C-alpha cells in the first residue's frame, strides 16, 4: 500500500486499575495501516479497544509495546501532531468559553498564524454550521452543537489526518448526515479520515476500508465489499396467512403478523419450503436471498472471540 498516513504495528496495552484489581489487557497486538486520502472505519463493539487505540495514537495514553507512525513520523513528535485533527468521543468542552473562543484556543495551541486565525475560524464555523451560534458559551449548547464545534476544532489546523472517535454517536439524523457530509468533503479534499464507530450503517455508507476490532485485535480488514461476501446464507419468504404449526421445513427464524408474515430458511431448505407452501396453498409474496452483512461479520467475530 503506497503512502501510508497512519501505521499501527503490534500495539499492546494493559491497564492496571488498582492494587487488588485484576489487570485488563485491552490491546493485544493490534496492527493496521491507513493510506492517504481514504476514509477508514474502525468498527467494533463497546469495549473492543477502539478508543484506547485512538488515545494511544494521540498520546493521551502510552502503549506498553508497539509502534505508531503518523505521516511517516513517530506519533509522539510535534511535527506528527501538527498534522492530526482530533475529535474525542462525546466532546469534552469548556463550558465557560464561547464556540469562537474555543476555536481560538485551539488555534493558539496549534501555533496557527494569528493574523489569519479569525478568518480561518469563521470559515470553519461556516463549514460545521455554527456561525450563528459561535458567540454563545458552550455550556448552553446542545449535544449536536457541541459535536459540531468539536469537529470544527479538529478541522482548524487543516490536518492531513483526521481522527474522529465516534463522531456520529448521539446525533439526530440531521446531525449525522451533516457530519457524514463533512467527512466526505474532507476526504474529497485529500484528507485521510480515520474514525471509530459501532454504528454499522455509517461504515457501509462512507468508508473506503474497514477494520473490525474485537477484544483488542483486528479480526478483519478490507473494503466493505471484500469483507461482505456475496454468498447467500439463506432465504426469507414473505407470505400471507398464518404460519402452520406442523411445518416440516426447519426454520432459522420467523415473524408472524396480522398481514404478511415471514420465515427464514437455509439455502438448502429453500426448495422444501416452496414445495411445502405450495402443497398447503400458502401464497408466497416474495422470496429474497439473505447475504452476509457487516453486522453478521461483526457478530461472528464477537462470538468467536468469546468476549
Amino acid at each position, binding site marked *: 500500500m503506497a503512502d501510508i498516513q497512519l501505521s499501527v504495528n503490534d500495539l499492546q496495552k494493559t491497564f492496571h486499575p488498582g492494587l487488588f484489581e485484576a489487570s485488563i489487557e485491552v490491546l493485544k497486538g493490534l496492527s493496521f495501516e491507513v493510506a492517504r486520502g481514504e476514509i477508514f472505519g474502525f468498527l467494533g463493539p463497546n469495549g473492543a479497544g477502539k478508543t484506547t487505540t485512538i488515545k494511544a495514537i494521540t498520546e493521551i495514553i502510552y502503549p506498553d509495546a508497539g509502534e505508531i507512525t503518523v505521516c511517516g513520523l513517530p506519533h509522539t513528535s*510535534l511535527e506528527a501532531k501538527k498534522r492530526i485533527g482530533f475529535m474525542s468521543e462525546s466532546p469534552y468542552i469548556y463550558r465557560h468559553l464561547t464556540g469562537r473562543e474555543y476555536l481560538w484556543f485551539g488555534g493558539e495551541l496549534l501555533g496557527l498564524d494569528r493574523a489569519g486565525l479569525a478568518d480561518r475560524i469563521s470559515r470553519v464555523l461556516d463549514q460545521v454550521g455554527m456561525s450563528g451560534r459561535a458567540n454563545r458559551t458552550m455550556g448552553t449548547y446542545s449535544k449536536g452543537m457541541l459535536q459540531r464545534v468539536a469537529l470544527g*476544532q479538529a478541522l482548524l489546523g487543516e490536518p492531513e489526518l483526521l481522527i474522529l472517535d465516534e463522531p456520529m454517536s448521539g446525533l439526530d439524523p440531521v446531525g449525522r448526515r451533516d457530519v457524514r457530509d463533512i467527512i466526505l468533503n474532507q476526504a474529497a479534499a485529500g484528507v485521510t479520515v480515520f474514525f471509530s464507530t459501532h454504528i454499522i450503517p455509517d461504515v457501509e455508507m462512507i468508508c473506503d476500508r474497514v477494520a473490525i476490532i474485537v477484544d483488542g485485535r483486528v479480526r478483519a480488514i478490507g473494503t466493505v465489499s471484500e469483507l461482505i461476501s456475496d454468498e447467500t446464507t439463506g432465504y426469507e419468504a414473505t407470505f400471507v396467512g398464518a404460519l402452520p404449526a406442523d411445518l416440516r421445513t426447519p426454520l432459522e427464524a420467523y415473524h408472524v403478523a396480522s398481514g404478511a408474515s415471514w420465515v427464514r430458511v437455509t439455502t438448502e431448505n429453500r426448495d422444501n419450503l416452496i414445495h411445502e407452501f405450495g402443497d398447503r396453498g400458502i401464497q408466497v409474496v416474495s422470496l429474497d436471498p439473505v447475504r452476509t452483512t457487516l453486522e453478521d461479520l461483526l457478530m461472528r467475530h464477537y462470538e468467536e472471540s468469546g468476549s
Partner: protein
Amino acid sequence: MRAVRAIATNTFREAVRDRILYLFIGFAVVMVVSSKLFGMLTVGDETKIIKDIGLAAMQFFSMLIAVMMSMILISREVDSRTVFNILAKPVRRWQFILGKYLGLVSIVAANLVLITVVLMLTVLVVAGELDLMLLFAGTMTMLEMMVLAAFATLFAVLTRPILGSLMTLAVFVVGHMSADLWLLTRQLPGAVTKAVISVVYYLLPNLERFNFRTEVVHDLSIPGAAVGWAVLYAAAFVVVVLFLANLRFRGKDLK
C-alpha cells in the same frame, strides 16, 4: 511558549468566569474592610491592627484561592477530559503543567493586587497614610502563594481533588510551623522521631520565610538579605515541585 501562554490564559479566563472565585474575593475584601471594626474594638494602635488583620486576611484568602482553584482548574481539566484535546495537539505535557500553574498564579496575583489595594485604601482612609510597605507584604505573600500553588499543582496530578486540597492545606500549616518543628527535634529523645521530623522539615517549605508582617505593621527595618533569600528559596521550591509534577504527569495514562 505560545501553548503555555494559551493554557495559562484559558485557566485564568475559566477562573474569572467562575462564581466561586468571587465568593472568596468578596469574603477577603469584607474581612479587610471590617478590620477597621476590629481596630475600634481593640486596645492599641488602630492602624497597626488594621494592617495586621488585613495582611492576615490577605494571606488566608490567597491560600484558600490557591488551594481551591488549583484543584478545581487542574483536576477538572483532567476529570472532564478537556485535557485530551490539548494533549492531542502539538503540546508537551510539561507545557500543560506550566500553563496551568501560570494561570493559577495569575489568578492569585490578581486577587492579591485587589486585596492589597483595598487594604491600602482602608489604611489611607483611616490613618491618612499611604503605606507602600503593604505592597511589599503583598509581594512576599505572592511568593508564598507561588510555592503553595506549585504544591497544589503537584498534588492535583498526583491524587484526587479533595485529598490534594487537604495535602496542600497541610503544606501550608506545616510550612508555617517549620521553625517549631525544628525546635521540637531538639526536645525529642528518640532518634527515629528526630529523623522523621527532620525529613519533613527539609522536604516542606518554611513559609515563615515569606512572613514580614511584623516588620511591615510595626515599621521595622527589613534586611535585604532575608528578602533575597526568600526570593531564591521560592524559586527553588517552585522549580523542583513543578519538575516533580511534570515527572508524574509525563508518564500518566489519562482515562
